[in-house]
């Protein structure tokens, strides 16, 4: 029986683990399908305090993990499928775990476009990680799908490798910040195809192109491509929590928040379950915010356990 089971291994999860294991609580981190979380797919992180010359996302997460393990946190590579609703909780993945409290720190995952041919060409031209896969498209023609900051950042990053990048977005307006849009628009390798919806990807053993439809005129376009990078945002990884805690319509876990100063801010609607990081936060979505919330959740869990003694 663990005192605290933390589901998720990003900055929220590992910071919670550092705090709870340092408080001599028996702590388990269930790492989930994306070990180390979203920061592992970025390059250098320049806005995490304490690293004056920046730090690689994967290195930062390794260090957080080591720090948690140093204080006795156990880490398992497993993916949670179900949890029960009352303490002591049973958490089930490939194996079953029991814990007095749970901290949900599952974060968010890259959204897929959701068209059938997308799955077929994953790893055969379609990618969700520009920093991982840009290398394979040296001198090639690619497209980035999306209109937010991530899409602009990926398009700009990919110009280091590729010949030509087309940013394809389903609306006329990009929702990225002005500075990111300006940077992308100034780049001679980047062009834009706006107001286009995706009908299908096509190819043989590898991706060859995409068929698009103009959202206003209905005009069909066929764009030959060697690669397609999908950057259409993130969705909270909380589907397994349906009927366990209250979530909003997008799947973000509801926590009490900071309205009452003396309250456990990270408490969910279910007694003994706390939540932190991008799975509750659609506004800030920063590693440092997730880490801060992780420490809050660990303190809340510790106080909750003390109250039960």
């Amino acid at each position, binding site marked *: 029986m663990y005192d605290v089971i933390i589901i998720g291994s990003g900055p929220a999860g590992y910071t919670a683990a550092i705090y709870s294991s340092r408080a001599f609580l028996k702590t388990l981190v269930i790492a989930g399908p994306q*070990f180390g979380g979203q920061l592992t797919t970025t390059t250098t992180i320049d806005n995490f305090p304490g690293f004056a010359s920046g730090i690689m996302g994967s290195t930062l997460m*390794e260090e957080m993990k080591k720090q948690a393990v140093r204080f006795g946190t156990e880490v*398992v*590579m*497993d*993916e949670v499928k179900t949890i029960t609703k009352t303490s002591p909780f049973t958490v089930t993945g*490939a194996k079953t775990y029991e814990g007095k409290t749970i901290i949900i720190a599952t974060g968010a995952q890259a959204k897929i476009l959701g068209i059938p041919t997308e799955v077929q060409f994953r790893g055969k031209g379609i990618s969700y990680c520009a920093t991982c*896969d840009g*290398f*394979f498209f040296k001198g090639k023609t690619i497209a980035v799908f999306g209109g937010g900051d991530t899409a602009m950042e990926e398009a700009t990053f990919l110009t280091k490798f590729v010949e030509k990048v087309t940013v394809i977005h389903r609306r006329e307006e990009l929702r990225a910040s002005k500075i990111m849009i300006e940077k992308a628009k100034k780049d001679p390798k980047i062009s834009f195809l706006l107001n286009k919806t995706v009908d299908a990807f096509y190819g043989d053993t590898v991706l060859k192109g995409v068929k698009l439809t103009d959202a206003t005129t209905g005009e069909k376009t066929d764009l030959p491509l060697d690669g397609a990078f999908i950057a259409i945002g993130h969705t909270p990884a909380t589907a397994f929590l349906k009927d366990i805690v209250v979530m909003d319509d997008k799947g973000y876990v509801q926590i009490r928040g900071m309205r009452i100063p003396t309250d456990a801010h990270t408490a969910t609607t279910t007694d003994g379950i706390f939540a932190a990081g991008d799975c509750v936060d659609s506004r800030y979505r920063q590693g440092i915010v997730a880490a801060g919330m992780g420490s809050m959740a660990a303190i809340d869990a510790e106080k909750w356990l003390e109250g039960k003694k």
Partner: protein
Amino acid sequence: MIDYIPYEGGNYMADIQITDQTFDQTVLKSDKPVLVDFWAVWCGPCQMQGPIVEAVAKEMEGKAVVGKVNVDENPGVAGKYGVMSIPTLIIFKGGQPVKQLVGVQSKEALMSALTAVI
């Protein structure tokens, strides 16, 4: 028992490097199934995959060969098997690729994929 996989950072499996030069001998001519992890130092998810592949290597010792190909240094092999996303893990049997997995894989997923071809 907890299936805890220790975390040792990026310096894993120094002994099972496969290169463009050694690929034929180590992988294609192997009499056992071979799991090949295509990776690079600049790929964050690959750093997460590393210790898992190493754990699989220890567990499957004698039953299968497990190795890694640095795609930066060995573009030949990566190109030949159409690797366009990393981590990609390919299982070879009798000189042929029999299973290809894209994205970070759990130990369970790799063990069951390997066990299926032994």
